[in-house]
């Protein structure tokens, strides 16, 4: 019986790169987040060699480690929120409760063999003008959101001093157990409560920075020659 046909060169290279099939390309080209560019330039030796000033002489980057984020890993993903389109565009001042948001991340591309080492939520808010003299400061809460069931218990509460810069929240160990492999999707309910009632903010953008270690692409560190 004939064995499976040998893959063509492109398919063989894809396989060597650990990719199941060639992505179709971004459905709509979106800007590459500056952090991802920075990580690429810092990590790619040929890129670094071309710009020697990036790599101090004698410094070698540890394999399977993301220096800039300080964790083990050889795959870094910047995952946009799939639910972004459905959100109302403008911050609102409400007399009652501020709105809650549901964010949804597609993690189907993460293989079961990959071990998450960092899952950082990045949130950009737009705040309505708070009343003069109102106390600044907010409290962010994160809970699991299950479709058709509603919101689960709050997993993470975090004080937020200001909204001018992106708010980061670490999910590993809070909304995601340390040694658990990635679910196929991650759906969360967010709420941002102001210290001063009535000054609600609007969630402009949400993304997840996920670092994983695929041990199949990692070689045990070579023993130093005797």
């Amino acid at each position, binding site marked *: 019986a004939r064995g499976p046909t040998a893959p063509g*060169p*492109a398919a063989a*290279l894809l396989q060597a*790169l*650990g990719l199941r099939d*060639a*992505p*179709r*390309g*971004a*459905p709509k080209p*979106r800007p*590459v*987040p500056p952090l*991802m*560019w920075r*990580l*690429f330039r810092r*990590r*790619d*030796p*040929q*890129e670094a060699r071309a710009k020697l000033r990036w790599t101090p002489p004698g410094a070698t980057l540890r*394999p*399977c480690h993301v220096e800039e984020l300080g964790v083990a890993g*050889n*795959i*870094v*993903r*910047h*995952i*946009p929120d799939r639910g972004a389109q459905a959100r109302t565009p403008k911050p609102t001042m409400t007399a009652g409760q501020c709105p809650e948001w549901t964010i949804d991340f*597609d993690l*189907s*591309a993460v293989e079961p063999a990959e071990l998450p080492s960092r899952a950082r939520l990045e949130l950009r808010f737009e705040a309505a003008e708070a009343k003069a003299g109102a106390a600044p400061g907010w409290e962010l809460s994160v809970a699991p959101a299950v479709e058709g069931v509603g919101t689960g218990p709050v997993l993470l509460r975090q004080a937020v001093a200001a909204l001018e810069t992106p708010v980061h929240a670490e999910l590993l160990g809070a909304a995601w157990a340390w040694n658990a492999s990635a679910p196929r999707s991650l759906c969360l309910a967010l709420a941002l409560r102001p210290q001063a009632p009535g000054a609600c903010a609007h969630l402009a953008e949400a993304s997840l920075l996920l670092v994983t270690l695929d041990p199949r*692409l*990692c*070689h045990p560190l070579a023993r130093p*020659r005797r």
Partner: protein
Amino acid sequence: EAEPAVGGGPSSACRARRLYVSFREVGWHRWVIAPRGFLANYCQGQCSLPATLPGPGGPPALNHAVLRALMHSAVPSAAGLPCCVPARLSPISVLFFDNSDNVVLRHYEDMVVDECGCR
């Protein structure tokens, strides 16, 4: 793009040869953001003496390779020459869009031949 294969002659000693892998050639330029390609290189050349004995700064010679080259020079039919293979490799990183519209940075060890040796 590859440096043409070598025949006999002095430049045929074992060393790294230029091989550039262009992602555009493989049709991946729509989803690979960076780099455009990478210098993978490859090893080729004779591992007879003295090529088997690398010069200063090269990888340490393996005694077995030297022994084999010696045997070959004495009785060519008895033992073939050692092989010219990668002796030192370095990694690359690839930044791309995947099918879920994520921006992905993947790091791959041992993708570029920096140095060849006789084994």
